[in-house]
């Protein structure tokens, strides 16, 4: 909660030496676009169409508002989540089945497992394990409290262990 206030309205964090995001949003897209898409792909449970749309829309809105954004990347993530939620809701209203999504064949098992998680659990686990972000940054990008991120991560790991296996592999 505080992070959202901190990052969006005031952004007066001190003592943190974070890598400054590229000021040029085109460069930001080249650097981070795949990561945003990847996260949204998981968040939507393999809905490639929604993930692409949410990613493009979030970056496009960021371009339109670039002069007022202090932390474009975190903002883009939150907008992308929002757009995806809205689109999935609209699909539900129209009666589109989530199963209509055709995942990449090699991802079928993973996608099935991810769909057993809640959307926030999916997003958190991908940001942590695929994007290698720490919980603080995950909270920032998802616009939720850090303790909540830890809860999502804990539950997501537990569920994925049950679904995909806990044994160690090379």
């Amino acid at each position, binding site marked *: *909660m*505080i992070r*959202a*206030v*901190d990052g*969006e*309205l*005031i952004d007066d*964090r*001190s003592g943190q030496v974070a890598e400054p995001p590229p000021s040029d949003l085109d460069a930001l*897209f080249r650097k981070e*676009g*795949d990561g*945003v*898409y990847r996260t949204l792909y*998981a968040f939507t449970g393999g809905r490639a169409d929604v993930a*692409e749309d949410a*990613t*493009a*829309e979030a970056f*496009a809105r960021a*371009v*339109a*508002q670039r002069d*007022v*954004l202090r932390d474009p990347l975190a*903002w883009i993530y*939150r*907008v992308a*989540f929002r*757009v995806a*939620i*809205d689109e999935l*809701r609209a699909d*539900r209203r129209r009666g589109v089945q989530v199963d209509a999504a055709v995942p990449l064949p*090699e991802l079928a098992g*993973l996608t099935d*497992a991810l769909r057993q998680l809640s*959307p926030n659990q999916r997003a958190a*686990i991908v940001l942590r*394990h695929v994007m290698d972000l*720490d919980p*603080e940054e995950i*909270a920032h990008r998802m*616009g*939720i*409290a*850090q*303790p*909540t991120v*830890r*809860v999502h991560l*804990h*539950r997501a790991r537990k569920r*994925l262990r049950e*679904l*995909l296996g806990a044994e*160690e*592999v*090379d």
Partner: protein
Amino acid sequence: MPERWERELDKLSFVDAPASTRARVTAGPRGDEMPPSPRGGQRVAAGVVAFVVFGAAAALAAGALRSPATTPEGSPDATANAVQSTPPSGGPILTATLEAPRDGSMPELVLTYGGRTDSFLATDGEWPGVQGFPLPIQIFEGSLDPGATISVESDAQSIEARLLVADQNQRMTGDPIPIDLSSGTATLPNDAGSFRLNLIGTWARGSAGFSVGITIGTPTGAAPPPSVIKGVVPDVIGLDERDAIVALKEAGFVGVGVFAPANAPAGVVISSDPPAGAIADVRTTVTLTVSNGP
């Protein structure tokens, strides 16, 4: 070595945005019914309300107000914009950091600012490796006037407060001063300057979130009446029940699901009472109607 599920998850590393994404970015935003303002959803709105409280606190510190923080009315976005565009003149600058140790020890919320009023919410849940959670330690820092009063209200089973007062070198090396909160209000020692207030609350395991409201009054005014903390009910329709309850917790509410047949996937929230956008006292129970399938 990674576990199998981690290896499976790694496959996502090879998922890249399709080439068409870039062209759609260049084409610009859709400009449809979606709001163009930077908002991270209703969860951010909860933070916005908190900021309004901070803003009132800043005004209080600047001497503009002699009453406790008022509750914002109207839409959270509009209120936030108003606060953002008209910061209290001469008021302190808010710096807030949220820190959670990564070694599995207790979560810690650290607020550092020169204001005098704060309210904050967090959620409980399963914390691997943490015994006795929820047992959050809240630390509040600021500067105080001699003889200022402090009042604390919370839904904790027990809460204790200790005060550390900075010396001339701004170091807090002295022994913590316990504050008797049994009466809900205490008068701080006659030491002006920076202080750190540690609040240690104990909440029942499984309780639906926690809340603490702190009001630090000026020494000239009477002890302020306890402020009622209000929040905006987030829009949780369409979320899974569990996510909806977590979202409500973040906003300070207690979500309770009731099942009803509906033309929606099972487990999805189809309505809430009070509805999204309503302003209600925190800890209000929000009844969620959850679909048990068509």
